[in-house]
């Protein structure tokens, strides 16, 4: 099993829609090779295009780290803004380091159906440097692209647990999530493990990335408990409005942009007309699903509450994006609109429902990433004939069970040792002053001097 497994598995699984173009492309390449009597030329170009796709789409996904940071900074209260910024910067760093040291090979190395191998990742491009381009892309470009994905999963957790989780324990959880939980779970599908053998389908990670992040967040929310004062003894909910909606809006736009990388790059190749046509289709479906998500969330919000809640609209964007991520390639544009719209409606209903359960999710990440991740994964067979609801459900349950169990163990271990939550006084004071000794907006009223 090599790092190309994700490609291989996808091609093997995707059936008619993906397979056909790929086959065509390969056939073309072969024909071409014969025609020009020397396949290297074409193949080196293909190799460069594929690598470029990973790099370009990878930097777009990297940019999503900034999107999560701004979204979360806008949705927490001022007294916790600096801390959430710090968590987002540092979790991205931790994810990169851990995925290098352990994660990548645990996901893509080895032959087991349930886990990769333990080894520091190291690239081998000697074949390509010697003129054999059958590796398809620079090993490092694939690493880079996979690495930014694991950071996304970690970003989901920080938002849900904002305003109460302690910095260092949160980072330890991130170490385990990005170095072990995500990669082991990922190996089952993208690493060519048992779920991929079974025919589970998750093109860009509605389940592998978003649901896994969402399950980890949900587990954390249950173990940490709600923010002080969030739920009233009478059963009511005290809203704690976010400090800056333009920052939340900015974050959402950043994520929308980054998602073209997330889904587009997951084609894993750009070296043939078939691949680049697929990427164009993915961009369109991704955009339409997000558009439908925001409009559906706005309409739902207007109908139920008689007002349009901006934060619901923003969550609608993300709902549409997460929903289409399981399969942004097969659906007809109208189906993409449908998948996204359902996501937008789901998220608008899920957020207050989760609040009713007294699960305190500061930014709505569970509704967006977990619930829409499940929806998107279930919706795949609507347009993708090679997949089945039963297999999709198997995958959803498997990822849920594993992530919940593994996260529970880690969160409890942390809770019993270093503690995972600041004390009530620190929470009241705000994590910025309690944990960082600083304020995100230290001045006494804008436009005046700080005192």
């Amino acid at each position, binding site marked *: 099993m090599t790092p190309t497994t994700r490609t291989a598995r996808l091609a093997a699984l995707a059936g008619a829609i993906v397979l056909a173009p790929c086959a065509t492309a390969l056939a073309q390449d072969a024909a071409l090779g014969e025609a020009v009597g020397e396949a290297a030329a074409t193949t080196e170009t293909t190799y460069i295009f594929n690598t470029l796709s990973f790099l370009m789409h990878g930097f777009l996904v990297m940019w999503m780290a900034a999107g999560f940071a701004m979204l979360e900074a806008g949705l927490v209260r001022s007294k916790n803004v600096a801390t959430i910024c710090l968590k987002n910067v540092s979790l991205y760093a931790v994810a990169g380091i851990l995925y290098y040291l352990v994660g990548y090979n645990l996901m893509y190395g080895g032959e087991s159906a349930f886990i990769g191998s333990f080894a520091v990742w190291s690239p081998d491009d000697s074949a390509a440097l010697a003129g054999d381009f059958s590796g398809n892309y620079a090993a490092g470009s694939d690493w880079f692209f996979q690495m930014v994905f694991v950071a996304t999963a970690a970003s989901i957790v920080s938002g849900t647990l904002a305003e109460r989780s302690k910095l260092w324990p949160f980072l330890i959880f991130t170490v385990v999530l990005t170095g072990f939980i995500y990669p082991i779970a990922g190996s089952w599908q993208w690493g060519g493990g048992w779920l991929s053998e079974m025919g589970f389908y998750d093109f860009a990670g509605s389940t592998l990335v978003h649901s896994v992040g969402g399950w980890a967040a949900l587990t954390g929310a249950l173990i940490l408990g709600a923010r002080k004062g969030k739920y009233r003894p009478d059963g009511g909910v005290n809203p704690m409005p976010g400090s800056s909606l333009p920052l939340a809006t900015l974050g959402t736009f950043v994520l929308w942009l980054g998602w073209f990388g997330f889904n587009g790059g997951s084609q894993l190749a750009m070296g043939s007309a078939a691949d680049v046509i697929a990427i164009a289709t993915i961009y369109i479906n991704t955009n339409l699903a997000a558009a439908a998500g925001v409009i559906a969330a706005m309409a739902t919000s207007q109908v139920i509450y008689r*007002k349009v809640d901006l934060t619901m609209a923003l969550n609608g964007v993300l709902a549409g994006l997460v929903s289409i991520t399981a399969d942004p390639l097969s659906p007809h544009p109208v189906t993409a609109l449908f998948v996204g719209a359902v996501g937008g409606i789901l998220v608008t209903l899920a957020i207050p429902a989760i*609040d009713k359960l007294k699960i305190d999710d500061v930014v709505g990440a569970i509704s967006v990433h977990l619930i829409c991740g499940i929806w998107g994964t279930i919706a795949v067979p609507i347009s993708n004939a090679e997949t089945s609801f039963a297999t999709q459900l198997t995958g959803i349950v498997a990822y849920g069970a594993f992530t919940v169990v593994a996260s529970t163990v880690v969160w409890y271990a942390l809770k019993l040792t270093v503690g995972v939550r600041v004390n009530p006084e620190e929470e009241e004071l705000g994590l910025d002053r309690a944990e960082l000794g600083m304020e995100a907006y230290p001045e006494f009223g804008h436009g005046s001097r700080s005192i």
Partner: protein
Amino acid sequence: MKLVMAIVKPFKLDEVREALTSLGIQGLTVSEVKGFGRQKGQTEIYRGAEYSVSFLPKVKVEVAVADDLAARTVEAIQKAANTGRIGDGKVFVMEIVEAVRIRTGELNAEAL
């Protein structure tokens, strides 16, 4: 001297200032406050959770005036800030025992 302290609706500030200026008052001090009163904020919904906004934005105007101007000051504010709707605010008058102009050290009436 009296300190006239008025809590008014923010958008009435300019009219209040003009009314006071036309009485010959040369200075005043303004702060941003939030008011709780008979005027209830709407019930709002944030992310599906209902809540009532109990504090509404108001502006506090503080103006120190000589005793003989106090009544007219109160009247001017009351007229300028009035919309006839609930939440228009209050005027409170307090006694000032001494006033000093920092720049010159002038006292009381001369300080205003």
